[in-house]
């Protein structure tokens, strides 16, 4: 390992593209840690002669290894994006939920109570279609559901008189 590069890097005076190389070398060359420590001691003794020499790094790193502490960076998401993102997410989720619920209703046979409601509906309202289309059971149930959940709508058809 190039120790002169380490010395410059310690002062923040090394190119960034070499920094990764230094850190990579560090993984296979423990002697670099000793150089790093010694150079820092020199600076600290020059600035503060009363410094206490101690080596806690090995104890700290060993404790971290034993505890199996993992450190993974959480991506920083700006607030606006997170708000928009959450609305979008919940919107999509709600749409999916409604769709699945609708499909579920369509596919599942109506219970007797619902069936009786359908019959009552059929008797009290005009025919759904003037064309007397015989809707399959699932479609009829969909129409019923539409009546139930869409108060503003009437499932109506319009007869357009055909000009003679």
């Amino acid at each position, binding site marked *: 390992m190039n120790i002169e590069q380490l010395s410059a890097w310690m002062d923040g005076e090394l190119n960034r593209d070499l920094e990764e190389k230094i850190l990579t070398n560090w993984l296979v060359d423990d002697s670099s840690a000793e150089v790093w420590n010694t150079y*820092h001691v020199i600076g600290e003794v020059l600035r503060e002669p009363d410094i206490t020499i101690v080596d806690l790094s090995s104890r700290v790193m060993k404790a971290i290894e034993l505890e199996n502490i993992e450190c993974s960076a959480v991506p920083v998401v700006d607030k606006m994006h997170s708000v928009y993102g959450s609305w979008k997410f919940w919107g999509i989720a709600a749409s999916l939920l409604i769709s699945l619920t609708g499909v579920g209703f369509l596919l599942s046979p109506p219970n007797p109570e619902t069936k009786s409601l359908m019959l009552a509906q059929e008797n009290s309202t005009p025919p759904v279609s003037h064309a007397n289309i015989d809707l399959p059971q699932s479609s009829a149930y969909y129409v019923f559901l539409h009546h139930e959940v869409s108060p503003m709508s009437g499932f109506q058809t319009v007869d357009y008189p055909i000009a003679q």
Partner: protein
Amino acid sequence: MSVLTSVLGAQSLGIPREGEVNAAVRSRVHNGEGNLSDLSDSNKELDRRLVVQAQAGNKKAFELLVVKYQRKLLRLVNRFVHDASEAEDVTQEAFIKAYRALKSFRNESAFYTWLYRIAVNTAKNHLVSRGHHFTTHTVAASEEAENFEDAPTLKDMNTPEALLMSRQLAETVNSSMSELPEELRTAIHLREIEGMSYDEIANIMNCPIGTVRSRIFRAREAIATKLRPQLDVSSDRRW
């Protein structure tokens, strides 16, 4: 710069007497011109890059930060926890807490500032667990603990062996410095004590930045050669 040249003299850039240098540094700090190594922008940027690496899972990067700040943090913790052995334990705990919380550190403030707060809180919690109570005065003092003029100095809390070791190390470094060629001594002095960047040093010494880099490295290596035997001994001891 003008303060420095007035202290050092226009002609000579040799190493001034220690008192003159300290006065010059204090003057610059007081006037807001201080650029001590620990607070310089390049130092913060280096820390920031190491933190990013550590957050990405590179434990060696965090180890470099521990090695860099362990003594400074221990000195800080010692202002709360007077027992040397306990102070080491509290300092160790502070670093571990910092590592656990590293993923939430957003690099908006300086890493050491953040580490400082963790260490102070860890020390306080330790004292509380030992039955100490904090008054308003104590809290206020703790916030300025590192620079608190009236706080006990480190030497009052160290063991005699630790004090002797500190003195021996200081003597070794100072004697090595005095034996260095003038250009090497000047370069490392301007870097370590004055906290100047390579660019500033190059301007003062009227040489290329590459030469500055080389001189600082050679000075460090010359001192380290004499220091290493003592550091190898100290690493086996527990003060």
